[in-house]
């Protein structure tokens, strides 16, 4: 019987998993990022390069993944924690330990989707509790139901991590230490081609059929001109800004006029600056911690706007009636989007224009989910993730700091977003109907396309074939046996041919053949294992 990790370390990792998921739901801090979690676990078990390597590979796999509209995606945080912890016990050299860690991390990440659904379902209890608290006019209980709404989320990650690490790390060690060399090679190749899944998913969200030219630009800069990734990102920014400033804005003028015609009465507001700040912080720090399937962000929203309602409706009955009005379905992009809607809604509530406010909320959550998801999940996160993963895979801790930084950049959108919304109030409708949202999302997605053109060959550059063929050629009248490297032939045809073929095959399977992400993942795992073991890739 081999020794696993002790109960102390297991507990520490379990607590980390709990805190990390809640910190992501709340203020959007990226403690649950696979690289950041990988670094933490690596530091705890004394093998930082291993944590970074496993986290970096998982990061690239998860590139295009985002919980659009509350969907469940593989839990790569838990995969990173458990994979790193298990592999660290083996004391294998880094490359082999990483392969073994990935062999554990991928199935764990997939299995965790089941617990995610369970956790998300359990949160329903909390919104029903909050409903009852509102009926009974019990403010303290209402607050408790919201804040404790984090329990199913945190526990659904923390408990499995604790038990897996505590009970599993010993027995699994024997297995890991006996992985045959061919399997290690297969697992290594698997790790190299899996990022194609992340890129493929990301491409399905990008308008590549319309704007493939931007992708070509990025590709040429990397593959032929050898421009570093940061240079490509800067060029993308410049080209996209030039392109869109030459392109006339397609404003819905008639709609803007219609929007201008909607007016609200101005009344004096009893709400102080302090109340607004309080509401804003509640929203930014806790909007999603009690997220549930039934009404999604409703409870967080209601709890956040409560300080405003309390001032506007001093009477108890009126206040709780207003609170109840906010306990309805709400879901949008939490950091880039929701604060602006919330700010505008606060302004309308202040003016006792609750009907307009409710309507505004419902109308804007769709457009703002579009803009927020594009800016966060399609532009910013992939850019940070590719840089961070490259650093992490090279063994640099900087990759983890970069991903951690990303979590704090949301504040840069959330605070100004809230005050913008509050200043504009109903005027937000006019802003939105001017076509600004389509323009910003188009800019973000073309920039992302440009950048991906360079990032894909850079990250998947390791996908090469070692195959060689021998052929007889006549040289100066004599027959000579010459060996031809297949990869050289590919390179003459088009640099980075294999990475492009794999990525666009993934894209094609997802988009045109309607394969699920899981089916493509299993295919890539099989291809990696088999072709790697056979030394074809």
């Amino acid at each position, binding site marked *: 019987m081999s020794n696993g990790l002790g109960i102390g370390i297991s507990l520490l990792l379990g607590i980390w998993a709990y805190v990390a998921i809640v910190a992501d739901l709340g203020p959007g801090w990226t403690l649950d990022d696979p690289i950041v979690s990988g670094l933490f676990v690596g530091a705890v078990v004394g093998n930082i390069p291993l944590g970074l390597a496993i986290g970096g590979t998982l990061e690239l796999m998860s590139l295009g993944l985002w919980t659009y509209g509350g969907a469940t995606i593989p839990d790569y945080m838990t995969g990173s924690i458990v994979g790193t912890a298990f592999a660290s016990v083996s004391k294998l050299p880094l490359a082999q330990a990483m392969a073994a860690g990935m062999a554990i991390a991928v199935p764990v990440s997939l299995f965790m989707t089941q617990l995610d659904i369970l956790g998300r379902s359990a949160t329903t209890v909390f919104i029903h509790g909050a409903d009852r608290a509102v009926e009974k006019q019990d403010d303290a209980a209402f607050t408790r139901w919201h804040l404790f709404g984090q329990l199913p989320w945190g526990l659904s990650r923390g408990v499995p991590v604790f038990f897996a690490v505590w009970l599993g790390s010993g027995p699994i060690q024997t297995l890991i230490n006996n992985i045959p060399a061919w399997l290690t090679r297969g697992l290594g190749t698997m790790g190299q081609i899996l990022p194609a899944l992340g890129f493929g998913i990301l491409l*399905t*969200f990008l308008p590549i059929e319309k704007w493939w030219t931007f992708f070509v630009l990025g590709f040429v800069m990397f593959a032929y001109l050898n421009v570093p990734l940061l240079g490509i990102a800067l060029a993308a920014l410049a080209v996209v800004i030039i392109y869109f400033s030459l392109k006339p804005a397609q404003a819905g003028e008639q709609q803007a006029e219609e929007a201008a015609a909607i007016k609200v009465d101005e009344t004096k507001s009893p709400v102080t600056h302090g109340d607004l700040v309080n509401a804003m912080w509640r929203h930014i720090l806790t909007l999603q911690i009690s997220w549930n*399937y039934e009404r999604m962000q409703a409870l967080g929203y209601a709890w956040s706007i409560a300080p405003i309602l309390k001032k506007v409706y001093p009477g108890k009955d009126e206040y709780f009636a207003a609170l*109840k009005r906010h306990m309805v379905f709400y879901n949008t992009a939490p950091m880039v989007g929701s604060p602006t809607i919330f700010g505008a809604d606060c302004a309308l509530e202040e003016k006792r224009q609750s009907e307009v406010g409710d309507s505004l909320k419902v*109308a804007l*959550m769709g457009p703002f989910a579009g803009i927020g998801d594009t800016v966060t999940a399609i532009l910013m996160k992939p850019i940070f993730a590719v840089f961070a993963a490259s650093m992490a895979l090279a063994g640099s801790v900087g990759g983890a700091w970069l991903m951690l930084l990303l979590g704090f950049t949301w504040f840069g959108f959330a605070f100004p977003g809230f005050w913008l919304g509050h200043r504009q109030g109903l005027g937000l409708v006019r802003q939105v109907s001017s076509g600004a949202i389509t323009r910003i999302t188009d800019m973000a997605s073309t920039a992302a396309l440009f950048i991906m053109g360079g990032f894909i060959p850079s990250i998947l550059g390791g996908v090469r074939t070692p195959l060689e063929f021998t052929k007889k050629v006549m040289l100066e009248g004599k027959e000579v046996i010459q060996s031809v490297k297949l990869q050289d032939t590919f390179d003459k045809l088009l640099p980075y041919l294999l990475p492009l073929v794999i990525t666009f095959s993934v894209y094609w399977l997802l988009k045109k053949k309607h394969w*699920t992400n899981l089916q493509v993942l299993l295919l890539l795992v099989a291809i990696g294992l088999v072709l790697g073991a056979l030394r074809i890739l």
Partner: protein
Amino acid sequence: MAFFLHIDNRLIHGQVTITWCSYYGAKRIVVADDKVAADPIQRIVLPQAARGLPTSVVTIADGLKLLSSMDPAQESVLIIARTAQGALALMQGGLKPKSINVGNQAPVQGTKYVMVLPWIAATVEDAEAFKAIGDMGYKITPQRSGDDRALDLVDLLRKKGLL
């Protein structure tokens, strides 16, 4: 080229809708709902969530008129209804979609609802409307995205005792 009917209380919800449009290859969106069409703010703002796809926000009656002017053999259209009843009205008005899917149905407070799936609430009235659509020979799927299993919603409603 075909019409696709989606039932979703979120109507056009950013990336979710865009993903479905690209899944079907739909180049146009029609939101058909009397309550939404009557709200000026929603009518103005909703098309902005469609990422540049031509979008109409109309009443059910106007939606049927608009759709009858389009040829499903020539044009792929995503038609969005907010409720089961709205979808049924569209179907009874002669809409012939290629497929029908329910993306999200949040519970309405003050009604007697059952959570059929974690993201789909239904009352007995909703269930009857879904069944009436099913009886027209359609399978209604309850998928949030193409990654969800294509179950039969009417079967699920029956299992939950709503039918």
